């Protein structure tokens, strides 16, 4: 079993990892950066390591040599990358391995294969996972792009092989656009990912985004832990997730899960992974990509399976056998995760910079809050704006929605604006409640990005007016009898004499 772990991340995920690791008797190390020397996550670990001074050109949690050096110098046995940052960076995984540090995640080879979408598609194709057509391998020139697009039928999407997170994607709706989009996508891919390779797929308008959690050990055992519904997105950023998905029945779930497991097996996958699918209105599903890290939204899976995914990651990395078999995995109840971010929804989800002046969290046996902030924490432009993830576990979907609503209503933050009014708007929305929504939800179905109670605007107006009155009421600062207070003779004498 691994004895010590360096968490190469910050915020709530660092705390989340540390909590499980410490419970398992693993010594935990966190990294202190100059940007937030008093961060909450630092108090959740056994040891704090100061990040060395650098010229600052590479952000701390992207600085491979220094991160590996910190682990080696302090004799830390393993490295957990969390999510984001270097979590899907094959070079980092390789650098760890070369330095004798156990990287908690799949091998660099697997990360590299899954990071290259063309390779990933190739593997998926070989094991019969359905895909959105298109070529295997990159598109060499604009003419081939046009030919391929015509074959697939419009619309099509040109994607960068090394891309992700919505970057390096171009949609073409007719033949005349393909050439130009191809050039654009190639040059964008070259500058953004240092790899101009692109490929073409059929483009689905507003599909559902559904992902399967898989977990695999060194011994070829692969288990899936059900799906997560992640269709509530804005500009490819997930905002609310749930598990299971209201779009799946047992039969479809079984088919998709089998595809996910087969893919993991074909890739010789090891550790925790997520297979992302797109699902169209006719219940056809298509492989999109595989993420080789722990996901932000992993707690919804933990809630319905009762399993601890970080614990599984650590066990697998220690070379142990998966403690569960597929038949042991039961999906119970319904979980919803609301991301509470410090963002000004009314101004287009821009980060709301400032200090969290006050925080009041809901509490209930059936809710879980993963957070990396406390009162006094500053939301800065340097890091993501997450305040907390609120995860609820209900008997069924309706119950979970009610519980989520009740919880966000009791979640109060002072000092910054948050996505709470947005979460309420989604949870109140009839289309969301019906379960029949897709990635076009925010654009098409959500009439208002924020939920306003009846008369709320009137209340706000009254608040403004009464605050104005209060500001201009200085009756408490006037004492008409003041003039009659006698002055101390000593002071009076001196004062007059000094004039």
């Amino acid at each position, binding site marked *: 079993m691994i004895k010590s772990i360096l968490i190469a991340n910050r915020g709530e995920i660092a705390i989340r990892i540390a909590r499980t690791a410490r419970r398992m008797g693993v010594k935990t190390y966190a990294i202190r950066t100059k940007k937030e020397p008093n961060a909450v996550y630092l108090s959740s670990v056994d040891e704090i390591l100061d990040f060395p001074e650098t010229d600052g050109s590479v952000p701390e949690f992207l600085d491979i040599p220094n991160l590996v050096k910190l682990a080696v110098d302090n004799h830390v046995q393993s490295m957990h990358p969390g999510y984001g940052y270097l979590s899907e960076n094959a070079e980092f995984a390789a650098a760890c391995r070369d330095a004798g540090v156990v990287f908690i995640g799949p091998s660099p080879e697997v990360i590299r294969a899954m990071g290259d979408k063309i390779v990933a598609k190739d593997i998926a194709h070989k094991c019969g996972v359905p895909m959105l057509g298109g070529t295997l391998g990159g598109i060499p020139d604009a003419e081939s792009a046009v030919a391929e697009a015509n074959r697939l039928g419009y619309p099509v999407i040109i994607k960068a092989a090394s891309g992700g997170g919505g970057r390096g994607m171009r949609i073409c709706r007719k033949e005349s656009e393909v050439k130009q989009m191809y050039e654009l996508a190639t040059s964008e891919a070259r500058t953004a990912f240092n790899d101009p390779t692109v490929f073409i797929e059929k483009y689905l308008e507003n599909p559902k985004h559904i992902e399967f959690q898989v977990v695999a050990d060194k011994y070829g055992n692969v288990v899936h832990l059900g799906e997560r519904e992640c269709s509530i997105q804005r500009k490819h950023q997930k905002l609310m997730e749930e598990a299971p998905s209201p779009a799946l029945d047992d039969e479809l779930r079984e088919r998709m899960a089998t595809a996910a497991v087969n893919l993991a097996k074909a890739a010789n996958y090891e550790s925790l992974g997520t297979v992302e699918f797109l699902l169209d209105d006719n219940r056809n599903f298509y492989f999109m990509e595989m993420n080789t890290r722990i996901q932000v939204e992993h707690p919804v899976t933990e809630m319905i399976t009762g399993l601890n995914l970080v614990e599984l990651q650590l066990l697998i990395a220690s070379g142990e056998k998966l403690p569960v078999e597929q038949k042991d995995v039961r999906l119970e109840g319904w979980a919803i995760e609301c991301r509470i971010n410090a963002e000004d929804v009314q101004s287009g989800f821009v980060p709301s910079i400032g200090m969290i002046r006050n925080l009041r969290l809901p509490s209930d046996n059936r809710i879980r809050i993963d957070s990396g902030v406390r009162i006094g924490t500053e939301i800065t432009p340097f890091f993501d704006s997450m305040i907390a993830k609120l995860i609820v576990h209900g008997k069924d979907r309706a119950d979970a929605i009610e519980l989520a609503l009740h919880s966000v209503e009791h979640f109060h933050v*002072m000092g910054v*604006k948050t996505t709470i*009014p947005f979460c309420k708007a989604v949870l109140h929305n009839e289309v969301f409640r019906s379960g029949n929504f897709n990635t076009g939800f925010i654009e098409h179905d959500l009439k208002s990005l924020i939920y306003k109670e009846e008369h709320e605007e009137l209340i706000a107006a009254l*608040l403004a007016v009464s605050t104005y009155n209060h500001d201009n009421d200085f*009756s408490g600062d006037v004492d008409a009898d003041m003039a009659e207070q006698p002055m101390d003779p000593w002071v009076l004498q001196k004062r007059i004499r000094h004039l």
Partner: protein
Amino acid sequence: MQNNIQNKTLIAVGKNGEEYEFKVQNSYQYSSKGCKLTIEMIEEADGFMLFSCEGVRYPVEIVSRKLNNYEVLVNGVSYNFTVETPFSLKRREILAANQPVSDGEDVCAPMPGKIVSIIAQEGMEVNPGDPLLVLEAMKMQNTLTASVKGVVKTVAAKAGATVGKDELLVEIKKA
């Protein structure tokens, strides 16, 4: 001090011109369209503010007050109101008719320094107070913010560049 708020009429004017008119009885009794509203501001022990209106409590926050302009949060939702009297409302119209309004804002470097990071992007919508970029000067990170609502027209600043005082960094076009 008597401010003669009794029987005064105050109007809250929203961002899109929506008007809410209130008659002021005293500091805790108002009425709107003949409907009596009794209010109370409650500061909880942990510092949260509750605004009670006719017994219903709302979590609120006064975000900013500038002149007669108030930004408040009710249930976490932001509202902007300017508080006017019937006369000042008329005055607003008169002045607006007389004066050409500026069509935006040029954000310039308030002091010489180095651009650390740029948050503003061309075409981005901004509101007053939104961060545009971070300027390091006197070894301190200063966040420069927009003072008008509008759309970012140009971003003249480059990350890592050194800028002089009053150098143009971001141009905002009023929405």
